[in-house]
């Protein structure tokens, strides 16, 4: 009887030791995934039109199945400094789109942005940096159509050297940019830059 009790207590002790060590070890940094260089932007020249442009219609929702994103979109403007404003940080499953610009699916560059995290933890685009070339992005539009985009590249840019033209500049075909924070983090200055996903329209429903 004492032997069974000893064995039991020894097992519980060992299990508690292992799980305690695992739990404490696992509380280190959980940096959001960052893209590898192989997901970088292909050379210009692959600008062929893949699907006919849609008429303008504001978007309602963005879905990225491979990273389990399914989020409503709110309209975004510009800050006083001229940078793209961001959705309210408190709502972690909310993304935004630049509503003075191109609507997703029409010819030009539509811009979507969302938080990688907020004070509470991971937010809507936490896994954006894990997207790969060829991944699908779907945007529900108010006209009832769904614009389907295919990822061309996933890049990281430092804030101090941000390529505005590449990211925001006009396009001759329907394109989409999806932006979140990334590029390393320091306690003093926060995230150093942005993860930017480049995609183009490949279909519509």
């Amino acid at each position, binding site marked *: 009887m004492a032997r069974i009790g*000893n064995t039991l207590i*020894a097992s*519980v*002790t*060992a299990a*508690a*030791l292992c799980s*305690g*060590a695992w*739990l*404490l070890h*696992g*509380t*280190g*940094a*959980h940096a*959001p995934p960052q893209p590898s260089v192989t997901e970088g932007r292909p050379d210009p020249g692959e600008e062929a039109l893949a699907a006919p442009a849609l*008429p*303008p*219609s504001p978007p309602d929702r963005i879905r990225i199945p491979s990273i389990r994103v399914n989020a409503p979109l709110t309209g975004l403007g*510009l800050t006083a*400094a*001229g*940078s793209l404003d*961001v959705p309210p*940080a408190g*709502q*972690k499953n909310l993304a935004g789109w630049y509503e*003075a*610009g191109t*609507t997703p699916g029409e010819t030009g560059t539509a811009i979507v*942005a*969302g*938080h990688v*995290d*907020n*004070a*509470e*933890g*991971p*937010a809507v*685009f936490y896994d954006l940096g894990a997207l790969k070339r060829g991944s699908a992005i779907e945007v529900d*539009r*108010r*006209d*009832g*159509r769904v614009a389907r985009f295919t990822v061309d590249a996933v890049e990281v*840019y*430092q*804030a101090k050297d*941000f390529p*505005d033209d590449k990211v*925001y500049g006009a396009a001759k075909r329907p394109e989409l940019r999806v932006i*979140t*924070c*990334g590029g390393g983090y320091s*306690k003093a200055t*926060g*995230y150093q830059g*942005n993860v930017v996903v480049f995609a183009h329209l490949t279909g519509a429903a």
Partner: protein
Amino acid sequence: MRRTARLLAGAALTVVALSGPAVSAYAAEGAGLEVFPSSVEPGGQVSVNTKACGDRATAAGDASAVGAGPFTMAPSAHEGDAIGQFRVPESAQPGTYEIVVECAEGGREVKGDLVVALNASRGQAMLPRGSVKTGVGGALGPDPVQSAAGVAALAVAAAGGTWLLHRRARGDGI
């Protein structure tokens, strides 16, 4: 482990984020006529939608004020709205024009304004500059709940270990 805890803790917030703004936005829009873009250049394409005619309803649109003539409003996959599109003629003069839609059933009329302007193209809107502040590092710190669980588990291990050592010292045969 941590992500699961986060998911559970954030479930209520997520529900609010998903339903809250959508519901309030549509309540605020009411049953009027939404015109997009509300400001357009001559030759530009315009889409209009409304909930006023009810679910799965059709309606007759009239954009003749701006010279685009009649158009059809058909039910869409979006929230049961009726939607329609037309193109503003190149010859349209700058100004504000009334777009009228009449529901096929009941004959209810809804109206919305369309502004025609020479520099209204959204393609020429000012483009954003620079990086976007979309994170604060909240995903990076230690998770207090997980840390507490880890400390508790180690405390159990310490107690068990002490007890076993104690029994062994007494020669209880382990």
